[in-house]
């Protein structure tokens, strides 16, 4: 698998709180933009991968964009935990000859289309019977519970969470496509904002966005003939740890050791690189607190050191590990982490709006706290 497949095209729609077009139309626009970027005709597409939560399916998308005969299609589960897995599945498919041109996509009207946690009918059986009646209703509540414990065990503070929010906002302020492009964030704004679920405030939560993104994956051989500079999938991994319980991981022996640790072991085992070689990281940020947990899980620091790692501008451009350089889910757009993949590609092409000089290696992660996935990309 190592470097056997490459991302050769990326595409997206605008990002906004509300877009007039349907999720299906947005999906088609993002996919066609990615194919145009790659210089590949839609009729050559024979593979698809998306999330189980994706509402547009292969049948509708394939016939709308004019795909050819499709020989591989897969969906990855667990919400934002599946983002990198979509590319991983396509990379495996093109490396093993099951497809030649794969498209991964996510289209979501999360900005205008309502909040999933308000639906009480589909989520009340396991494990919701143990949590939701007590008012632990939203992902923010579930992660806030782990955050409080993390702060208690390791001395993390709200200032550490602010460091994450600020780094993402600063990068969004450099990115005209970001929802928060012209909206700077200050420490005072953060510290005086309203609570959502203590200890998480408004700015610890990701945006609510309408938008779609896509990327095109082909074999390394094919990649050399494409229009855009290839970005290779050096290593890819999924992670579902033993005795894991999803976002409500309170029943695991060690609830703060999440799926990132499992995915990381697999990711680094198959890579020629180690965490110290990573030039820039796109780390899933539905909530600020996921970033210190992921920094520990992926091996950038030791257990309990993720909060301290964020100090001294470490996550800013020029810091130890520039983070979420398009603004991430917190400040560019929240489309289940797919914008982290496309920004990883831009960094390695040298075309980011917050370019890390000479970036050659980028870690991209999917949702931590749920069964997850990750990609190690290289130029």
């Amino acid at each position, binding site marked *: 698998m190592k470097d056997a497949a490459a991302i050769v095209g990326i595409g997206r729609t605008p990002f906004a709180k509300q877009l007039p077009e349907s999720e299906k139309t947005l999906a088609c626009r993002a996919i066609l933009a990615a194919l145009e970027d790659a210089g590949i005709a839609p009729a050559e597409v024979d593979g698809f991968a998306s999330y189980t939560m994706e509402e547009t399916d292969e049948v509708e998308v394939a016939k709308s964009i004019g795909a050819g005969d499709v020989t591989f299609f897969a969906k990855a589960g667990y919400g934002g935990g599946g983002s990198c897995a979509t590319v991983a599945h396509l990379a495996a498919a093109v490396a093993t000859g099951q497809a030649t041109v794969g498209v991964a996509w996510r289209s979501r009207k999360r900005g205008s289309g309502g909040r999933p946690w308000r639906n009480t009918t589909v989520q009340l059986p396991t494990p919701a019977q143990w949590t939701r*009646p007590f*008012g632990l*209703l939203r992902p923010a509540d579930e992660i806030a*519970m782990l955050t409080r414990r993390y702060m208690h065990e390791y001395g993390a503070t709200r200032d550490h969470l602010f460091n994450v929010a600020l780094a993402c906002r600063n990068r969004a302020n450099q990115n005209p496509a970001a929802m928060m492009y012209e909206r700077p964030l200050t420490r005072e704004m953060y510290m005086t904002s309203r609570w959502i*679920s203590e200890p998480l405030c408004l700015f610890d939560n990701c945006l609510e966005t309408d938008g779609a993104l896509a990327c095109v994956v082909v074999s390394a051989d094919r990649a050399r003939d494409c229009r855009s500079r290839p970005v290779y999938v050096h290593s890819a991994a999924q992670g579902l740890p033993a005795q894991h319980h999803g976002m409500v991981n309170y029943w695991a*022996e060690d609830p703060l050791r999440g799926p990132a640790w499992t995915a990381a072991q697999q990711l680094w085992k198959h890579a020629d690189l180690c965490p110290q070689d990573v030039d820039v990281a796109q780390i899933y940020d539905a909530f600020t607190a996921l970033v210190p947990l992921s920094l520990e899980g992926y091996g950038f620091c030791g257990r309990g050191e993720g909060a301290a790692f964020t100090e001294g501008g470490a996550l800013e451009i020029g810091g130890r590990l520039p983070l979420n350089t398009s603004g991430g889910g917190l400040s560019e757009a929240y489309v289940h982490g797919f914008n982290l993949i496309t920004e990883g590609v831009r960094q390695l092409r040298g075309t980011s709006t917050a370019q890390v000089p000479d970036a050659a290696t980028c870690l991209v992660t999917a949702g931590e706290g749920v069964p997850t996935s990750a990609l190690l990309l290289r130029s």
Partner: protein
Amino acid sequence: MPARTPPPAPSPAETGLLLPVPDDDGAPFWSYAAAGELRVQACAGCGTRRFPPRPCCPRCQSFDSDWQRTSGRGRIWSYVVAHPPLLPGYAEAAPYNVLVVELADDPAIRLVGNLVAAPDAPLGSAPGDRLRIGAPVRAVFRELGGGDRRMTLPRWVLERP
């Protein structure tokens, strides 16, 4: 099962709360809760307790289990204080706390619940300044719902109010 004292009727403010929808594995927990007992599933083969309940033992793979009574005592492992936007019944009670409690009998077993000022006091009734990781708590039982849809939920009060 021992005789039980009927729990107080739900207050009007608490009728909008979600009731548990038990699955096959979880149903005994709620039946015992209705009897005022906090019990957890344990493997009949190797004795390992497990939560949430599930069909077989992840340690020895036995499908036989029994339900062991606990002391109903524990400590706060973590907590949040939820603020709107929330579902209607919860928005009315906000801000309210939600706890994870580790059981004194077996700290590996943790339960989500709410700290209340008294067994019949509503969600959000416990003073915020009493919330503390490590604080000892004990289970009380509260019936919610109405008509033919009533469920008894464990809640928590401070051991040293």
